[in-house]
């Protein structure tokens, strides 16, 4: 399914949708998340990481400060956050080169800030506020990574 749209009506539902995505992921895969502050990027990532089996959702926190979190239980997941990246750089200058040297699931928040180059299959997910609890999640999956659904 190359592209689709989901609407979630609660924090729990966003996590559940993330879990369903996470369960289908096979490394290597790059997930590019975009969307405003508070749109639910970290929440969705909690679900994806727990669905992939790399960590529990409680263990997944915002990586804004250290830029990258690594979750490593079975599947290796890197959770990258470019929010604090002020200038236009490409990934090689961020000290994150290692992330792409091994087969992993790489999830990037604020991915709209950078042009990322990779040979890996890419899933683009855009999150939007509809109202206080309601989010619209648009998934673009040209490589059919989530085709099982």
């Amino acid at each position: 399914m190359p592209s689709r749209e989901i609407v979630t009506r609660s924090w729990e539902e966003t996590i559940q949708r993330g879990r369903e995505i996470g369960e289908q992921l096979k490394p290597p895969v790059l997930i590019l998340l975009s969307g405003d502050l508070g749109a639910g990027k970290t929440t969705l990532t909690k679900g994806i990481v727990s669905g992939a089996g790399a960590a529990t959702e409680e263990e997944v926190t915002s990586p804004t400060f250290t830029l990258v979190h690594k979750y490593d239980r079975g599947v290796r997941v890197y959770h990258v956050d470019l929010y604090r990246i002020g200038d236009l750089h490409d990934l090689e200058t961020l000290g994150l080169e290692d992330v792409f040297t091994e087969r992993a699931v790489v999830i990037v928040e604020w991915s709209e800030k950078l042009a990322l180059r990779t040979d890996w299959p890419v899933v683009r997910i855009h999150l939007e506020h509809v109202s206080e609890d309601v989010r619209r999640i648009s998934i673009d999956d040209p490589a059919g990574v989530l085709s099982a659904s």
Partner: protein
Amino acid sequence: MTTQEHLILGIESSCDETAAAIVAGGKRILSSVVASQVEIHRKYGGVVPELASREHLRQIVPVVREACEQAGVSLRDLDAIAVTRGPGLIGALLVGMTYGKVLALALGKPLIGVNHLEGHVHAVLLEAHAAGRRPALPAMCLIVSGGHTVIYRVTTEAVNGAEAFSYARIGGTRDDAAGEAYDKVARMLALGYPGGPVIDRLAEHGNPRAIRFGQPKIKGNPYDFSFSGLKTAVLYHVKRNPQLQPEIEARQQAIERGERGADALRALSTPATLDLIASFQRAAVENLVGRTLEAAAHYGARTVFVSGGVAANSELRRLFEAEAAPLGMEVYLPSRALSTDNAAMIAAAGHARLLAGERADASLNAEANLPLA
């Protein structure tokens, strides 16, 4: 020389500050030099990791030299070198750690790896000990900054005739760190970067009861924090109140002209914005203080430590002191210089590890997500 007089060089480079300090006997600060990169990163509105590593590289040698000169100590006089090995930005950590490691090898001095969070605990102990106070342990320690919001229970046990510290993680944030929520709210309201000090100053001029932001509902551990919901609630308040937009734009333009700081921005803020800022701060601070004191009560700690950059927040300090006293708890809040990142706290934490007989070897590595417990 008695064991009290060990001279430790501390080196810290986990994020935006390159710091070096010489501490004698784990409590007497002979020098503490901090070279901040805030000005460098401000024009990008955030940290540029590549730039951060390069700045650390440029600063590390002069900062260590300056620390030795101010202390009147030569590198040969040192008893050990303590370096931060995580958590933090990996490229930044590597600069301080590699330099410390090479210095220790070249000088034939013991090397000690320190967890940055443990350093924050020791910032409190260092200042208490320097004032001749001995905080009763176990203590409940809240470390709250731009990157961390976590509660540890701090205890000691006797090892080799010395006190070895141990830490148990009681709770922590499920999403954003408190300081991160401050920075993000500051970005929404155009208050500049970093957001904490400006919000703290502006909050004094607003009504903290104007807007009721509910406390977060968290399942599971009652001592965990969540600041993401508060951040989103502020965002929705701004969206629902379009009349706030013109002043947000005005402040943004002022910041771009270089007019920053609380005084300049206050002149461009209506009472509605000041009320929003004060209400946000009240919600954040009540949450931090409430959960920390509940954790202390639950685990029978009579002592509370508060450390990290947000520990400098005036309302946090006021509320901790007001609420701990009736519970018979003693609160230790470090001075501003020791709240924010510094190397004296790394030297003090290294001193305790040195006394407990700990040594690191050349295989010591930096770890971006190093846990304390």
